[in-house]
């Protein structure tokens, strides 16, 4: 084992310079192939393979690519240059992040890539924070749709088609419903903030939908999504139809969400908890106070910027006092009376 590891350690040193030299050449052929399968392969290469093997996979990809590429490219050039041109910007656009992803080791070229990825993420809409360069590319390739469908493996998120209820909602609310997808067979509707109350009232009162129970209400913090930092998630259930529906509303930081407590009384404590944990304000809530944490607790713990090992010493200093215990009962009574 020791020998092997030594070999592996040696390899990158020998191949390192060559990869560095290859980068500009590789960057061009790689991105078009990126499509759907590549990001996953990259992640694997990043995480699992030792550094020494990376150049090999890249080289293989490079070899495979031109073969795939050429047939598609050449007809475009032969047929009409106009067709070729619109294709190229798409391919060029993803290149810089690709470069960063492909050459993991050489640090300097990586740096220019990150600033561009957030922009790509914004355009792609819903996007998790963790993955850096790969998903945005996949999203742009899929045509400004959320990343999940483009991911390797089973597609978990699909557009809802042919569901009478969802079609009806879409028809009625038009542009206010920005997204209607199903994940693991669970239906999710994304709606604009302004139409939330209208939609909820419709879902509750309409005889066909009859979503009479608000099972759960919570929020998710996406700090990377500028202008839409929070998702409020309302989970509905219809006892009569035995059916679930999830509604999502995107909010900017500091923006208030319309409260659904007047519609479903059960949302009361759920909204209070969301306020407590995320600092989200719910307009129209009858009693918006903190619920699990003390009223004067600083910060909102479930925001991503709140550290996990945060111990607020000021708060504890203020509220937990250590006093000498006096065992003279008459004195205790006096103290108690004074405190009251």
């Amino acid at each position, binding site marked *: 084992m020791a020998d092997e590891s030594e070999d592996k350690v040696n390899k990158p040193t020998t191949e390192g310079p060559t990869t560095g030299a290859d980068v500009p050449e590789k960057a061009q052929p790689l991105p078009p192939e990126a499509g759907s399968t590549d990001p996953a392969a990259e992640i694997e290469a990043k995480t699992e393979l030792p550094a020494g093997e990376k150049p090999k996979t890249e080289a293989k990809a490079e070899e495979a690519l031109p073969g795939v590429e050429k047939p598609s490219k050449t007809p475009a050039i032969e047929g009409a240059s106009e067709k070729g041109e619109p294709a190229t910007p798409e391919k060029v656009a993803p290149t810089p992040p690709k470069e960063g992803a492909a050459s993991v080791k050489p640090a300097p070229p990586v740096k220019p890539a990150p600033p561009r990825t957030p922009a790509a993420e914004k355009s792609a809409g819903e996007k*998790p924070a*963790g993955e850096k360069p790969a998903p945005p590319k996949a999203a742009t390739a899929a045509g400004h749709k959320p990343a999940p469908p483009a*991911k390797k493996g089973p597609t978990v998120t699909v557009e809802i088609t042919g569901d009478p209820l969802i079609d009806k909602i879409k028809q009625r609310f038009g542009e206010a419903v920005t997204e209607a997808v199903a994940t693991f067979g669970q239906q999710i509707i994304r709606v604009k903030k302004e139409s939330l109350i209208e939609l909820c009232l419709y879902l509750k009162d309409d005889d066909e939908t009859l979503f*009479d129970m608000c*099972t759960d209400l919570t929020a998710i913090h996406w700090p990377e999504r500028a202008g839409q930092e929070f998702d409020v998630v309302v989970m509905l259930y219809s006892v009569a139809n*035995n059916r679930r529906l999830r509604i999502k509303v995107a909010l900017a930081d500091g923006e208030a969400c319309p409260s659904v407590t007047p519609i479903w*009384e059960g949302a009361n404590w759920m909204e209070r908890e969301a306020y407590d944990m995320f600092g989200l304000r719910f307009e129209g809530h009858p009693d918006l106070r903190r619920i699990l944490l003390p009223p004067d607790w600083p910060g909102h713990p479930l925001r991503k910027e709140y550290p996990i090992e945060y111990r607020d010493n000021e708060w504890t200093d203020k509220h937990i006092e250590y006093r000498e215990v006096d065992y003279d009962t008459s004195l205790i009574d006096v103290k108690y009376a004074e405190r009251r």
Partner: protein
Amino acid sequence: MQEREGLKPQETLFDTEEMMLNMGPQHPSTHGVLRVLLKLDGETVVDLDCDIGYLHRGVEKIAEHDTYAMITPYWDRLDYVAAVSGDLCYVEGVEKLLQVEVPRRAEYLRVILTELQRIASHLLWLGTHAIDIGAVTVLLYCFREREEILKIFEDFIGARLTAHAFRIGGLWWDVYPEFEKRVRDFLKIFPDRVDEYETLLNTNRIWLSRTVGIGILPAEEAINMSLTGPVLRGSGVNYDLRKAQPYSAYSEFDFEVPLGENGDTYDRYLIRMAEMRQSAFIVEQALDGLPEGPVMAKVPKVIKPPVGEVYHAIEAPKGELGVYLVSDGTGKPYRMRIRPPAYINLQSLKRMSIGHLVADVVALIGTIDIVLGEVDR
């Protein structure tokens, strides 16, 4: 406000004024560290506010920093008198996310353990509820049977209370040889024991006067308040996730969902008693049909679910226990939301208490069946 007006004494010689009464958080009848602020007119409750959070541990925050496998034991400690149910909810949620199919033997064993846990949880509820109201004997009887279940758990899982029974993908190990015999022995005696509790309470005059007509919840209000579990079924709403949206192997068993008529404390008591019998019946069926085979599915050692989100809910002893997992493709959940049944059911305490006496508040806290570990998380 109207109710309050109605409660006020009419023109009398004596002036009365409302009084604030603080109950808890160390009060034994609040089942832990629940603090209830009561506004009283004489002995009648005019207004009520719950103060919770004394046991808040930030499990949802911790989960964002732990791997999927590491989170499982936290679920034992949410509802610590029904640890197995908590495990089942989380583990099935992650399996849904990973799209793992659990071996049938594991599914059956899960049903057996969860239903035993339901019996244990209801027994603890019955004992404490009865002692709150004044029937001390029942507690001792209930703990006798609960002990049997806990011993079965201890020999199988290694823990009595926080039984970390399930792993993502199945069970960590198969049951020990005498397991089936011991569960069958328990099932043999158990129905008679339920009869015994019922002879103590069902027609007991004190019990009846303390529970009948107390805390009546109409069905529409119960649904609107998002109540689940026996509290909802006490109002006559047929909503049991084991039937409505069967998970694990529940679709293969034959059982009934007991429903109440009046939605009062007595109905909720009857429902839980009937549920214990049904649970015993399910365990019996599961033991009869227990298939052979492995108990663990093939699950990668490093769990990295695809990007996506899933909500999974089970019928825990207290109601609908749900988990909402948002995965960003890494080894740790981006967000984990626990849908705690007791927390949401506790909201109805205010609605149920107003107009009743202080002593009834104790009965009503008992009838909701709260565990503060789950309420505060």
